[in-house]
């Protein structure tokens, strides 16, 4: 199909042909990691560990899908942990629990996700209408979320008893953990949104060059707010499932999830400058992050060292995804 002749190629194209196509590098890294971890500890490939791995990665995928759209747009959403904390505590209070006599079941899930979606919407409004950089608006929202969640839960763990929620997060269908289906479903939805909806394409356009997108008549603010709202929705679902997996609603249940989500996105090839990358990369990135954490555990690396390793990955990811020579200066 490609009818490109030599004469119409840009210098950027000639340069990019020398590099690996996108996704190849993350996939190679993933394969190398799997081999490495298996060599260190063959138990990595045992059924129990794989199932554990799938539970872990599924929640990360759900949370990271929301973050990916935001990063693609050239913004950042730092509110992840606050949103997850709220989702968790709402579930702990409204679903069947040890603490009170509430038993709203599915309605509790719905309320938690709606509240999270609303927070995402507020992030978007604060960023666009009040013109606060997304970094600051969402950082503030993270603390609002954690604060509210701590207040609502009195700082306590709220053990969840709801059988439906527990079977979602801990049950299996055949050999496959139920959480995997949630992860796959959310990934497919995100993929569809990115590839086949106007919203998905506009997010890329805004991330590519906001001023030009505006010139083409795209209502920037509307789509930015939509993206933050969608992120809130995804993170809310992730928060609900995460607390069900832990088995309790708690204000600190989102701990380390923000960093993992950003690492998954960037490690999967989504540039922090926006415009390039996508949800497929994030899927691979999430697998990389999870295999590394799991591998470190299996290799006996002390858990205190693990954050340091994540820090190194995200830095390497940034080096590989952004062509820094094109940036006029580094902020």
């Amino acid at each position, binding site marked *: *199909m*490609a*009818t*490109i002749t030599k*004469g*119409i*190629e*840009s*210098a*950027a*194209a000639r*340069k*990019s042909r020398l590099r690996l196509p996108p996704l190849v590098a993350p996939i190679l890294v993933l394969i190398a990691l799997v081999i490495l971890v298996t060599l260190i500890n063959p138990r990595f490939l045992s059924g129990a560990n794989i199932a554990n791995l799938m539970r872990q990665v599924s929640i990360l995928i759900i949370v990271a899908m929301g973050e990916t759209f935001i990063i693609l747009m050239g913004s950042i959403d730092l509110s992840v942990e606050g949103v997850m904390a709220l989702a968790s505590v709402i579930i702990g209070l409204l679903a069947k629990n040890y603490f009170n006599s509430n038993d709203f079941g599915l309605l509790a899930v719905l309320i938690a996700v709606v509240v999270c979606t609303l927070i995402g919407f507020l992030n978007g409004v604060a960023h666009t209408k009040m013109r606060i950089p997304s970094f600051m608006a969402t950082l503030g929202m993270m603390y609002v979320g954690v604060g509210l969640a701590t207040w609502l839960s009195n700082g306590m763990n709220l053990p969840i008893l709801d059988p439906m929620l527990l079977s979602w997060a801990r049950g299996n269908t055949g050999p496959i953990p139920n959480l995997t289906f949630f992860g796959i479903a959310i990934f497919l939805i995100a993929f569809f949104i990115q590839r*086949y*909806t*106007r919203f998905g*394409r506009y997010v*890329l*356009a805004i*991330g*590519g*060059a906001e001023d*030009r*997108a505006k*010139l*083409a*008549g*795209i209502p920037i603010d509307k789509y930015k707010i939509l993206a933050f709202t969608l992120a809130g929705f995804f993170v809310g679902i992730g928060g609900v499932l995460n607390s069900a997996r832990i088995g309790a609603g708690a204000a600190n249940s989102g701990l380390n999830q923000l960093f993992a989500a950003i690492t998954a996105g960037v490690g999967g090839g989504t540039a922090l400058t926006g*415009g*390039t990358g996508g949800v497929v990369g994030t899927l691979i990135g999430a697998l990389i992050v999870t295999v590394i954490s799991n591998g470190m555990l299996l290799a006996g690396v002390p858990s205190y060292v693990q954050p340091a390793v994540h820090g190194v990955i995200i830095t390497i990811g940034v080096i590989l995804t952004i062509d820094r020579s094109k940036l006029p200066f580094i902020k």
Partner: protein
Amino acid sequence: MSDFVLEVRNVSKSFPGVQALDKVSLQVKPHEIVGLVGENGAGKTTLLKILIGAYQPDEGEILVRGKPVHIRSVKDAEAHGLAMVFQEQSMLPNLTVGENIFLGNEEAFIRFGVINWKNMNAEARKQLAKVDLEIDPGTYTFTLNFATRQMIELARAMSLEDRTKYEPVIILDEPTTVLEKAEKELLFDRIRSLKERASIIFVSHHLEEILEITDRVYIFKDGKNVAERKTSETNVGELHRLMVGRELKGEYYRQSKQVKPAPEVVLRVENLNKAGRLSVLPECWVRAGRKSAGRLPGWINPIRGASGLMDNRCATDRLRQPSAPAWAMYHRIAVWKGWCCT
């Protein structure tokens, strides 16, 4: 029906301290290429921005096909069949050619919220055929060179023809600035063939180009529309006189008023090279007291780089002031040595 597809009547626009446009009028007939010339600051760009809705005029009116219109955004302009090909280009590099052609106007390809890529690309192919460009609409725009992207912008402008059922008015803002000679010829070729189904406003300060391609030309000076000429009845000398308000007597750059270059060379560049950015610059020099006239010579940017004022990583083989070698200059050293860059 009016005789004109586009008519600008007594449009004025002022910015704090500047009267950018002063009662400017202009008409464009169907299938006409209208030239717009003027020095920098003559008001050309302001008028174009008014035509695509980026600015609102203070007074005066704009008529499209005989009807007065208010253009408040690019979308409004496009709805009236007015499109602009920007000098600095408006393509999004990370989207495909097809997406760029229909960016902001995807409605026709969306069913129940789902984009039908096959339809969009087929339609894009049709638009590309109008400018004789045979590329896959699924190609990412960043892989294409400037001239090709410009053709795609032209195709995007021509897509208005199908969307609005009008023959479009296409504004080309200094389209030839960075084109090579062959590319320019190709562009002119396309413009001439598009003339059969569109009107074109061609903005340039290359008078030869204006004479080559346009049917009629408006001359702007200091925000006023000072004259209008049929292209066949004018020449470079007259256009230039109207444009700058004085005679062109074989002295385009007022050479006689220039300071005579002093004999000593203040900057000499030999074998300047930066991998991937510059090809080797064999040798050039600047003498003291020489004013750079008109357009900057093409090697000014490499020199800026070499002198450290733009990019201190430029590798110079030998860059030196005759009195003292100044190789490997960094910003700070460059400024200290009396260089400056504006």
